[in-house]
């Protein structure tokens, strides 16, 4: 769902603020594209569905229901399949949530971002701290154990203490899943321009590292498993859907600007492809109406490229890359053969950033925080 009521100051996603959305047309197109691509992929079973955006909670529950029905008709959608909806506190009335639940949604990811009104204003969010609380409480009532919240840290001017307070407040409010994102000042956003222009301070590197470390310690102490760079869960409430990205499973992207990775067996394809749907909603709709899908680009991924993705994404998780998963993409050359030999990876293991053992390759606690400094070396070794 690519539409928003308002653009946030830090966001550079493919989102659109329009006065009126022809929802019936968008719904028809989402359904049609889902059908086309599911047929193309010939998947038998869909293990998770994620409605992201934009602001999907602005859509009518009927649209969500229609898409889910289409998925269930084209492939097997097990009763326990994870169906997540991204929601903004400003568009999540209890009645609305009831509607989504009835449509088939069973997990909610709420964009709280901050529990401080001044910070929320700087981020250009529409909601207040009180509204965020209300929304999370409502969601927890309807989706107990399956409500996640998003939180940002490293805001311009945010101190370590302020962050610790936000974190504490969030812990008092949250369910069993929490995503903590360091604010990225994306080029072209209003916030980045303010920081570059000097009207807002750029957060110092070391402070960001401290904030991240604080969060990791606090959340671990309260029973959360740090299962991915920015994701924490307890009682096994991991996001099945997001895990599939990091495990390099197959996924189909439906809607304007959506990305997918799958083998188009329906047209005789044998290789995994990287696909991107047309960005602009109106154009996308026209394409779906005329050809059943709005795939703008498709690129066959070589086996090296698939391994590069597996490596770069897999190391984001606490489980890392298992031997089994690696073997699935590289039957010939084992993890041990590639990264156990003398070279960059071996050095990084000796320096305490990486572990390669009987379960697979993964980052150490310290290594996870500097993964982007490890990856170029590992990719460079992999390419050789």
């Amino acid at each position, binding site marked *: 769902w690519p539409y928003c009521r308002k653009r946030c100051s830090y966001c550079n996603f493919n989102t659109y603020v329009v006065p009126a959305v022809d929802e019936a047309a968008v719904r028809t197109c989402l359904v049609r594209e889902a059908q086309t691509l599911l047929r193309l992929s010939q998947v038998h079973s869909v293990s998770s569905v994620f409605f992201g955006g934009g602001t999907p909670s602005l859509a009518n529950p009927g649209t969500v229901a229609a898409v889910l029905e289409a998925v269930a008709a084209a492939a097997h959608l097990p009763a326990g399949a994870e169906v997540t909806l991204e929601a903004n506190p400003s568009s999540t009335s209890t009645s609305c949530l009831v509607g989504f639940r009835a449509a088939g949604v069973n997990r909610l990811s709420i964009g709280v971002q901050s529990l401080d009104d001044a910070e929320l204003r700087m981020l250009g969010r529409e909601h207040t701290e009180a509204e965020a609380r209300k929304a999370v409480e409502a969601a927890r009532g309807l989706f107990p154990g399956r409500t996640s919240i998003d939180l940002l840290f490293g805001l311009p001017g945010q101190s370590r203490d302020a962050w610790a307070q936000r974190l504490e407040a969030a812990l008092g409010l949250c369910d069993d899943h929490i995503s903590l994102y360091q604010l990225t000042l994306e080029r072209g956003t209003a916030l980045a321009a303010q920081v570059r222009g000097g009207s807002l301070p750029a957060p110092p*590197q070391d402070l960001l590292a401290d904030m991240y470390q604080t969060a990791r310690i606090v959340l671990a102490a309260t029973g959360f498993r740090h299962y991915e760079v*920015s994701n924490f869960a307890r009682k096994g409430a991991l996001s099945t859907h*997001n895990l599939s990205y990091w495990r390099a499973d197959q996924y189909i992207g439906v809607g304007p*600007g959506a*990305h*997918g990775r799958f083998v188009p067996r329906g047209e005789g394809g044998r290789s995994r492809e990287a696909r991107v749907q047309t960005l602009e909603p109106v154009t996308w709709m026209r394409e779906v109406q005329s050809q059943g899908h709005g795939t703008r680009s498709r690129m066959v991924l070589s086996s090296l490229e698939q391994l590069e993705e597996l490596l*770069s994404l897999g190391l984001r998780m606490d489980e890392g890359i298992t031997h089994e998963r690696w073997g699935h993409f590289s039957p010939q050359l084992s993890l041990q053969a590639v990264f156990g030999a003398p070279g960059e990876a071996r050095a990084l293991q000796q320096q305490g950033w990486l572990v390669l053992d009987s379960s697979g390759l993964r980052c150490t606690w310290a290594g996870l925080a500097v993964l*982007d*400094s490890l990856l170029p070396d590992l990719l460079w070794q992999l390419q050789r």
Partner: protein
Amino acid sequence: MALAGRAVLRWGPRLPSPCAAAAAPLCRPAWLPAACERRYSSRGKEKLDMSMYPVESIRNFSIIAHVDHGKSTLADRLLEITGTISKTDRNKQVLDKLQVERERGITVKAQSASLFYNHEGINYLLNLIDTPGHVDFSYEVSRSLSACQGVILVVDANEGIQAQTVANFYLAFEAQLSIIPVINKIDLKNADPERVEKQIEKLFDIPTDECIRISAKQGTNVEKVLQKVIEKIPPPQCNTADPLKALVFDSTFDHYRGVVANIALFGGEIAKGHKIVSAHTKKRYEVNEVGILTPNEQPTHKLYAGQVGYLIAGMKEVAEAQIGDTLFLYKQPVEPLPGFKSAKPMVFAGMYPIDQTEYNNLKSALERLTLNDSSVTVHRDSSLALGAGWRLGFLGLLHMEVFNQRLEQEYNMSVILTAPTVPYKAVLSSAKLIKEYGKDQITIINPAQFPDKLSVSEYLEPTVLGTIVTPHEYIGKIITLCQDRRAVQKDMLYIDENRVMLKYLFPLNEIVVDFYDALKSLSSGYASFDYEDAGYQSADLIKMDILLNGNPVEELATIIHNDKARAAGKLLCERLKETIPRQLFEIAIQAAIGKKIIARETLKAYRKNVVAKCYGGDITRRMKLLKRQAEGKRLMRKIGNVEVPRDAFIRVLKRETDK
């Protein structure tokens, strides 16, 4: 100035000749006498009979001036009045043929033109030898003057005498040439020719009534200048009946015809078919063509004593037509003319291709360009970080910039230039080193070769005598600047009520990079500067190393005066800290003299470096970036365990010159 070139450009198709190379990017208007048009325009014309011009009717002269005082404009007018070029309002710097010359409004290369002028019923042959207008090229001026008997000294009526006016005057004066003072730009609103006449009288001892007030731009009184040239400048003292004696005062290279030597005949005559010998190389040649420059090449039957022209004689390399060489007829040797001092490089810098795969292309571009600019010295060099390259010697920083600009404009080459250094010397005391070098005094043009203090009895640094002319209100600031640069005052003279001429002895390295810019900025552009070589002086020099986690960075080693090391080291460390990306461990950036650390910066280790969001839609972009970084690993220079991007050093060095 730009040390690194632009972003790498496509290496254009190999061009058959420098003419083609020059013509393509220059978009030269058709009416300009481009070097490549010369060849064709000369054909089909009647060969001139130069015997019509006996020695008595010949005048050989140069125009000398401070930069921008109107030398080239006056030359344009003289060419027009004498009908050498047609009169249009488009004649601007006709003799400045290079793109850089036109863009920068400076003459880099001396050019000659023969003018025909009838005065009181006599046809005169006036040979105008245009000279470069920048301090870097003063040696070109001196070699042009050696073919002359007189000069026109042009001074701007508004700006008055400037540093270069002084330097050029003394060059002419010492060569015992007749001097015709001309005050130009009298049409300007603020022109004050009277004041300038008084300056000339005071400084050069020339009576005020001898100055000619002109406006070269409007043509006012330019005719008078020509008459004075005929009246005041003596004809050359020589005889056609004598054996041939020709001075080579310049040369250019033409890919089709080989070396074109500019010559001045001090005796005899020369024609096609003559067998000649170079006094310098003793090599024998047969003359293919002689002619005069108008300013295009115009073949003639012969050239006679006193005349100035060109000669083509199958010389393959510019080195065969050594500036200052004397040519004579085979089996009729003459006493060679006193050769004048050859160009001496004052500034050295490493030059490397941005990408090593372009090494051969750059090599061939360098070879072609140095054919036409023999004042650049070229030694092969290599650096661990920058690969194979060269160490080039230039006459000065402007010369270096111009050379670099010509590489870009005429050969489409972008290069990395390292920080400029001056030629230091070391007097060796170690017997081992003396044996190794075969001499007890060596010149150091690369910091990597700096010998240790223990094996040296004395280090020497090159000095220059600088002349500064400035309005008096800036004196205080200028004196402070000079003292900062370790300069010693030698003279101070008021040339009129509010202008002062200062003379300072400078260590060359103190003025090489940014002195001129500093002087200009603190004097709001009013002070002018010129310098001449003043030999070597003893200096307390040291080699400063830059260390990354204890490992020296070879390409950042600099030779520096002991007093300046601490400040320079601190600056370099600070800049490196900003340039080197954070890594997984802490990096100590240090400046050291021998084992002694004189400055230190610490680049902290990365504690967090991982992108926050990486979901379905982020992966493609993320992978692209990561792969580029992985690819970049190949281009990293490893110093110990520290990875440094290749361009980091260049960025550090480049900014040093921007301060």
